[in-house]
């Protein structure tokens, strides 16, 4: 599915670091992440909560409080630098050039305003010359586009009068109302039931084709990735541990953490309960990051390459013979292949 045209990245993130000063010390939520997304391309970012996937996308949107978060590195959106850019300029990009969809549409929509009003507001911010009427027509049009029946009536409904799926459709309508070039969807389907999930993902795919925008999908669900993403970035403890196309990462995963993620996906074929092997342990504390490879306390293979796992932070390096695929792991490439063949592949992850 990889778009092979040599287009420039619309979004470029280089060595992004985001840290927060707290009473207990500095939390390094994102610790040097780099990636790019082209128009028409969908990048999936996978990781557990606390892996830094949401923090990095909030940084792209410029939504961190400058007084509380320290951001270094570079983020360019359509060639414009976001890091260190005055709030007012970033604000003008938000909602217009780049838009965001959030996890729980019930809490993400204001409970006291009608859906229509919220869409109208989003539109008129960036179209100050548009009349209320024009904006309303536009809102109805968008609601229609995202598949809300009788949009001319539902435009005056409040969020609580919508079903979960409808709310997320409305949220999508709101984010797309200004034809953004970059859309970040943060766990867009997590709060929805499975059938609705599929519909929403279909809708997002359709819309992306139509608007030809760059899309980032943030999720912890590899199923979502397999359905919609072109490329995948796996994050752990604020760093990228594996990166590649969907094909590369899901079919030829290189990182033990990715293996773990794959193992924890219920198989569509077998007995879901039996197949489910969650990753042992819990995500690391970002205040007291484990030394060396941050994954080592949970990694069954740590220490198989001397003490490096405990002392050195692994770099994200290209995987041999697999162009565009990279991994940050101390295990030697052949050892990884061996383990994968023995322990993981037969689990038969069907994505």
């Amino acid at each position, binding site marked *: 599915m990889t778009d092979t045209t040599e287009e420039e990245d619309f979004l470029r993130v280089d060595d992004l670091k985001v840290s927060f000063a707290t009473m207990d010390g500095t939390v390094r939520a994102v610790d040097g992440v780099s990636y790019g997304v082209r128009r028409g391309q969908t990048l999936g970012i996978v990781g557990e909560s606390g892996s830094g996937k949401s923090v990095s996308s909030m940084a792209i949107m410029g939504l961190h409080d400058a007084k509380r978060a320290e951001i270094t590195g570079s983020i360019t959106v359509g060639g414009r630098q976001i890091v260190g850019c005055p709030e007012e300029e970033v604000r*003008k990009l938000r*909602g217009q050039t780049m838009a965001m969809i*959030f996890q729980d549409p019930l809490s*993400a*929509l*204001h409970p006291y305003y009608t859906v229509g009003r919220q869409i109208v507001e989003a539109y008129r*911010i960036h179209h100050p010359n548009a009349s209320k009427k024009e904006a309303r027509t536009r809102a109805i049009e968008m609601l229609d586009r995202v598949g809300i029946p009788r949009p001319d009536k539902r435009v005056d409904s*409040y969020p609580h009068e919508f079903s979960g799926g409808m709310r997320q459709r409305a949220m999508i309508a709101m984010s797309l109302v200004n034809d953004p070039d970059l859309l970040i969807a943060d766990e867009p389907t997590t709060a929805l039931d499975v059938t609705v999930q599929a519909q929403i993902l279909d809708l997002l795919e359709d819309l992306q084709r139509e608007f030809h925008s760059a899309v980032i999908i943030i999720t912890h669900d590899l199923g979502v990735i397999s359905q919609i993403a072109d490329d995948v970035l796996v994050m752990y403890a604020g760093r990228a541990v594996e990166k590649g196309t969907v094909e590369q990462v899901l079919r030829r995963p290189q990182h033990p953490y990715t293996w773990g993620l794959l193992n924890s996906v219920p198989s569509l074929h077998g007995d879901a309960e039996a197949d489910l092997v969650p990753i042992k342990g819990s995500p690391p504390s970002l205040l007291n990051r484990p030394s060396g490879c941050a994954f080592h306390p949970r990694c069954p293979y740590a220490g198989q390459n001397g003490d490096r796992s405990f002392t050195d932070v692994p770099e994200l390096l290209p995987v041999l013979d697999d162009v565009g695929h990279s991994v940050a792991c101390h295990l030697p490439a052949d050892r990884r292949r061996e383990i994968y063949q023995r322990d993981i592949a037969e689990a038969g992850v069907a994505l």
Partner: protein
Amino acid sequence: MARFILRRGSLALLTLFGVSVLTFFMFFAVPTSPAELQCGRDCRPAQVQNIERQLGLDQPLWTQYGQYMKGIVVGRTIGQGDTAIKCEAPCLGWSFRSSEAVSSIVGRALPVTISIVLGGAAMWALLGVSLGFISALRRGTWIDRSAIGFSLAGASLQIYFVGLLLQVLFVYTLKWLPTPTYTSPFESFGDWIVGMILPWTTLAFLNSAIYARLTRAQMLETLSEDFVRTARAKGLPSRQVYLRHALRAGITPIVTIFGLDLGVSLGGAVITENVFGMPGVGFTAAEAARQLNLPVVMATVLLAAFFIVLTNVIVDWLYAYIDPRVRLG
């Protein structure tokens, strides 16, 4: 909506009925004879009997209560013979002490109290909410600390103190302001404002604390809500994010407190009115209580109850207006 009005309306009436019965029997059951008190000291038994007859005190309590209620609805005649008084509805009784209908006493006092309370409430809500708003946005800074400190200072002081202090400072010493006096705004709007500035300021200073703290807490809570993040992600300028999204979402408890405060104060801002010598409902009530002028006391108590019930109904209705998720009914 109709159901709401019907349901809350009848509940309100029931409450008022309860209050009226309670007040009536409480006040008319006091051991001192109201007639004797009205008559003064150098009073002959014939005069006491006469006042008793005039007040209907010689009749059973329930009859008296019925008469009273009837007076409120359709008016009634008090006393007999040449000196009988036609008391028009809503007849709240007759003050023999000042020879006039209680309704005109209350009618005269009400605009004063309404002026003090509405102006003061507008100021204290505005001041409190602004202070709370600013401290929430500037959380942890010196602005936050001084705003909250200021409002706490207000809350911990007494109106006697602040009111008199401001009066001594601005009226007697600096002579910037005339003595607080009530002038009808319809007579002279300027005089009304000038005469009300001190009571309003005092009330605002004293009452804003709770609003400041509440607003601050509410703002801090709503600022972390997802929909605020959504609003910012839409590209809304911060002012609109804070006011239209964050503050709006946190306003419900503020409105509740405001409604209750307003209801209680409208029943008579006793201390404020006394400190500034403004003859409002509270002033009148205190005076009447001191003189045991029962019809006036009764009327002011009923009025206070009425305002509390009324503001409660309005607050309930406002909930639905503020939060579309709340259904009336």
